């Protein structure tokens, strides 16, 4: 049995994982990153449009600060987020982006003077301040009050990931590539690492660590069409679920991005609309202002995706052999802008659609994009039920996104959570020792060995590729943008059957070393369990909140549902997960539940909402001299590592 010991084990080499690794390395702990692929190929690289941070340097970001970013994030989450975490996040985001700037990201900079931009379909001249010249600029994104999304053309994820990985290389952090964690090793409620399969040799290795961090991204590939990379299959989240001890949070919260190209589902950034692009129907008519007169194309993602679907249901979609779609029109932005700031989009259009977006409309449709749900953690990033297990980034339900994430807040979360959680991981490494026996380690390795040898010896059974396809179709058809009871019930039942069938997978290619079919056979049963968590959670949640939209329960119901879904899978033989809930405490909210300002407000209010609103008003009235920092401390005191407590400087207002 091969055993590798370390202090800090990080599963996943994207932005979040690398940032946690950097934090624990810089604090002097032995650190290893595991990755399916070379780290620079992680799905973080595919983030195009940008990272939100309230720097407020560009003129359209004037007046922005942590408080405005906080309000946008909480509203965007449909009040489903953890407001402590959202606070930690918005306060740290400006530091994170400035650190990345020092580490080499060539953020687009403000150029003083006049420039033409497209706002609401019209050319407008804006004037950047002289004193902002050379500071980090920002573009507009959906669901935000200010232009807050910092960017490098539409390759933001790429430049961030390259800077981060370069920093990790500078620090000598080892990345063990082509390694897949297939089970966590744990005992008495403490996690000690993972059983890892070498994807080339097939060897199983036990990586034993004080702290284990899962940063494996989302579970978009549970759906047949997703903008996500093909590796975003949620396996890291699944191995946490399979411990039976760790909990997953809000698995039913799945975001659909309004503008992925048809049919392959590759993303075109929200920056297209942020920079002035429009959505048009089959008549070339701009329909979004009819539905959302205020924010139009730049309403929150969940809202735009639903409006587009509604509009297509009215027969206004463009018919194609791949089903209906709508048009994204960026022709009005002009060649120069597109070739500078939307060049990935242009390349994608040229290669995959054979069109020139400078002159032609882009066929788009809402497509699975982001997993708000994931491994439930507390504010320090640690599982509340499995000590020593941490999670960061899309894999986690740290819960700053609630039921809908704002564009630009995901790469921001990866690096901010990486910074904050990384410090707590280091603290944990400092305060704990490895006390697990080799017999326990051996037990976990043997269990996985047995599963693999069963797969390799079974002569007749299910085809893993087909099971996966069936699962993806069920999720797409029945657990999509709009959901309803009968469809969800069917999905839950059908997935149960798939779960049973997935216990009898047999392979055609029966070798234990590099074998794509074996990889699939190991992953698919885990993916089906994850799909069951999503579908079952969606069935049970009889309300609509953020991206979870029930046609049979259209109202947001704070009275009964202002709570986070928690899912565990305690009994391996069970054919459904166990679902419980934890209440969000209205009386502790800095921003009590209100309306997001889209469509009709049909919220069923929580009995505490009015009480808390009044309390907030009283606190404000009783402390007339408090500045915004003191007020936040009164309304929402948060714990944050000491080194991130400083106030953030902005032009024109200093540290105010």
């Amino acid at each position: 049995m091969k055993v590798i010991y370390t202090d800090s084990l990080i599963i996943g080499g994207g932005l979040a994982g690398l940032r946690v690794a950097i934090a624990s390395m810089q604090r002097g702990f032995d650190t290893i990153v595991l990755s399916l692929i070379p780290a620079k190929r992680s799905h973080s690289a595919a983030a195009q449009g940008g990272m939100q941070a309230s720097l407020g340097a560009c003129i359209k970001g004037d007046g922005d600060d942590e408080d405005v970013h906080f309000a946008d994030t909480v509203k965007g989450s449909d009040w489903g987020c953890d407001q402590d975490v959202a606070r930690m996040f918005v306060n740290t985001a400006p530091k994170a982006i400035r650190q990345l700037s020092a580490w080499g990201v060539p953020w687009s900079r403000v150029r003083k003077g006049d420039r033409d931009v497209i706002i609401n379909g019209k050319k407008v001249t804006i004037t950047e301040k002289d004193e902002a010249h050379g500071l980090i600029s920002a573009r507009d994104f959906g669901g935000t009050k200010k232009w807050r999304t910092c960017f490098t053309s539409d390759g933001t994820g790429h430049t961030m990931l390259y800077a981060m990985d370069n920093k990790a290389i500078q620090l000598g952090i080892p990345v063990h590539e082509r390694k897949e964690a297939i089970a966590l090793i744990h005992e008495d409620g403490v996690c000690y690492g993972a059983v890892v399969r070498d994807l080339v040799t097939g060897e199983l290795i036990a990586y034993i660590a004080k702290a284990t961090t899962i940063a494996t991204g989302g579970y978009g590939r549970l759906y047949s069409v997703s903008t996500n990379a093909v590796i975003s299959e949620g396996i890291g989240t699944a191995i946490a679920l399979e411990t039976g001890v760790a909990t997953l949070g809000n698995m039913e919260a799945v975001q659909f991005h309004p503008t992925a190209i048809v049919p392959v589902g590759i993303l075109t950034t929200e920056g297209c609309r942020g920079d002035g692009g429009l959505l048009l129907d089959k008549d070339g008519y701009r329909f979004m202002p009819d539905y959302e007169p205020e924010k139009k194309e730049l309403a929150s993602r969940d809202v735009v995706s639903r409006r587009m679907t509604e509009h297509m249901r009215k027969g206004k979609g463009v018919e194609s052999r791949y089903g209906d779609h709508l048009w994204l029109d960026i022709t009005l932005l002009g060649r120069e802008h597109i070739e500078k700031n939307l060049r990935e989009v242009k390349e994608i259009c040229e290669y995959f659609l054979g069109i020139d977006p400078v002159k032609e409309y882009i066929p788009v449709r809402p497509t699975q994009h982001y997993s708000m749900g994931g491994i439930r953690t507390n504010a320090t990033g640690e599982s509340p039920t499995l000590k020593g297990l941490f999670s960061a980034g899309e894999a986690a339900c740290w819960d700053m996104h609630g039921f809908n994430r704002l564009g630009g807040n995901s790469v921001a979360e990866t690096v901010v959570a990486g910074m904050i959680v990384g410090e707590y991981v280091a603290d944990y490494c400092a305060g704990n020792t490895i006390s697990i026996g080799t017999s326990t380690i051996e037990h976990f390795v043997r269990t996985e060995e047995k599963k693999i040898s069963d797969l390799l010896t079974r002569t007749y059974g299910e085809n893993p590729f087909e099971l996966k396809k069936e699962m993806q179709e069920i999720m797409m058809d029945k657990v999509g943008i709009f959901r309803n009871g009968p469809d969800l019930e069917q999905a839950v039942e059908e997935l149960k059957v798939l779960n049973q069938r997935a216990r009898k997978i047999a392979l055609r290619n029966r070798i234990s070393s590099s074998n794509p079919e074996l990889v699939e056979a190991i992953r698919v049963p885990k993916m089906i369990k994850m799909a069951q968590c999503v579908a079952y959670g969606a069935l049970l949640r009889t309300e609509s909140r953020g991206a979870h939209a029930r046609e049979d329960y259209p109202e947001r119901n704070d009275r009964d549902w202002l709570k986070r879904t928690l899912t565990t899978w305690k009994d391996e033989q069970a054919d459904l997960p166990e679902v419980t809930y934890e209440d969000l405490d209205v009386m502790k909210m800095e921003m009590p539940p209100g309306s997001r300002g889209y469509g009709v407000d049909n919220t069923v209010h929580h009995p505490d909402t009015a009480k808390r609103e009044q309390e907030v008003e009283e606190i404000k009235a009783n402390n007339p001299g408090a500045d915004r920092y003191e007020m936040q401390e009164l309304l929402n005191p948060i714990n944050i590592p000491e080194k991130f407590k400083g106030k953030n400087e902005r032009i024109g207002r200093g540290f105010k």
Partner: protein
Amino acid sequence: MSEQERILKFQIFRYNPQRKGDKPRMVTYEVTEAPGMTIFIALNDIREKQDPSLQFDFVCRAGICGSCAMVVNGRPDLACRTLTSKFEDGEIKLLPLPGFELIGDLSVNTGNFFRAMSERIESWIHDQYADEVNYDQLEERMDPDVADEIYELERCVECGACISACATKRMRDDFLGAAGFMRLARFAIDPRDKRSDEEFYDVIGDDDGVFGCMTLLGCEDYCPKDLPHQTQIAYLRKKMAMVR
């Protein structure tokens, strides 16, 4: 739209070094073409329906991550964004990228190569005061044009096409290659990186560096991101020639 269903003929290099006694060979697979089909879609189709042992690498499948470079009918290219419709006779020959360690079939180890490249040229910002920066304060300003220029050179996705297309690399094992020059040029124009020309010279000022390039410029011809390799190699040469 009239569509005639075509049968595509894929000739694919097969060899699994993990399998004792396995020998390199070409195997032909037939696939019914679908509208908008890419090599990504076709290879997955082959794996799922015909041969589940077929190895290849895709991650983003959108031309962004650089995982899937392979030799397609003699040219290194990103397979994910190569449409099958562009091959008139419907015959597509796929080989793994040369110049890299073979993992199996079409999968090669670009990870160890590029990590070593990054370590060799110290692909990070060199600034002894970097760790003393106070991130609460306004970031250091940068000329907007300089930021744009850095981004231009930062668009490399480490796909390896330039390395596989490089004749010099074929002759000199330790030749840095165009991806390395591009990365170095990116840091050389970055005002945040305080390295001097002399320090850059130590990295690339020999025949395994920029002076070894035979200027056949396969890198320029096959870069899927259309990076300005020729210009940058010339720029670095000029810069390095002035050092000593």
